[in-house]
């Protein structure tokens, strides 16, 4: 059983398109996250939700919009894709806000904008 699953694994799309990435966790965790990992492998937090409520909203273009229909799901919608959006996007979850117990990450979605 996959603990944190994201789809799709790979996404190749043209500039200007709109795309979504889906994430689901079956761990019963309250908190979920979206991270962006750039070509230099730096992990940058984008958003965090705790039990469907937005608790972290970093400086991210408003073309990125997260949605959490329930605490087991956190989706990411991106409008008007740009070349600079190309990266690997990771979903993660933790039992609650705060970091003592660590995060469980999905296997990532590699987004390529051409």
């Amino acid at each position, binding site marked *: 059983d996959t603990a944190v699953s994201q789809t799709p694994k790979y996404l190749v799309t043209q500039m200007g398109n709109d795309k979504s990435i889906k994430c689901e966790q079956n761990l019963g965790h309250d908190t979920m996250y979206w991270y962006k990992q750039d070509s230099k492998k730096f992990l940058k*937090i984008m958003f965090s939700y705790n039990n469907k409520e937005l608790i972290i909203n970093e400086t991210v273009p408003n073309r990125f919009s997260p949605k959490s229909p329930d605490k087991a799901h956190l989706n990411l919608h991106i409008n008007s894709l740009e070349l600079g959006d190309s990266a690997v996007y990771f979903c993660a979850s933790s039992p609650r806000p705060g970091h003592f117990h660590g995060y469980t990450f999905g*296997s*990532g979605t590699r987004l390529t904008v051409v």
Partner: protein
Amino acid sequence: TQLLEQSPQFLSIQEGENLTVYCNSSSVFSSLQWYRQEPGEGPVLLVTVVTGGEVKKLKRLTFQFGDARKDSSLHITAAQTGDTGLYLCAGDAGNNRKLIWGLGTSLAVNP
């Protein structure tokens, strides 16, 4: 801005060798985590250290948290090819918000 510096950035060694990688900051952290990331996968939590001076062992991996809780090290004994990956440290500043991540040490263990 809080930063975590990891060194070395790249490390290539032969199977059986020992190695140490470092994670340093000028800031104090309430806890610090180490993750390993393999190609095409997400980071996987290895350990969380909380107390200054704490040492934790995970088979051949030994993690240490500095006395002042500003730095940490990871020592691998008798490295194996399965240890290959990107080792990331992440610090919790204690404000219950975002983790502070390092850039990682990319380790290649050659047969």
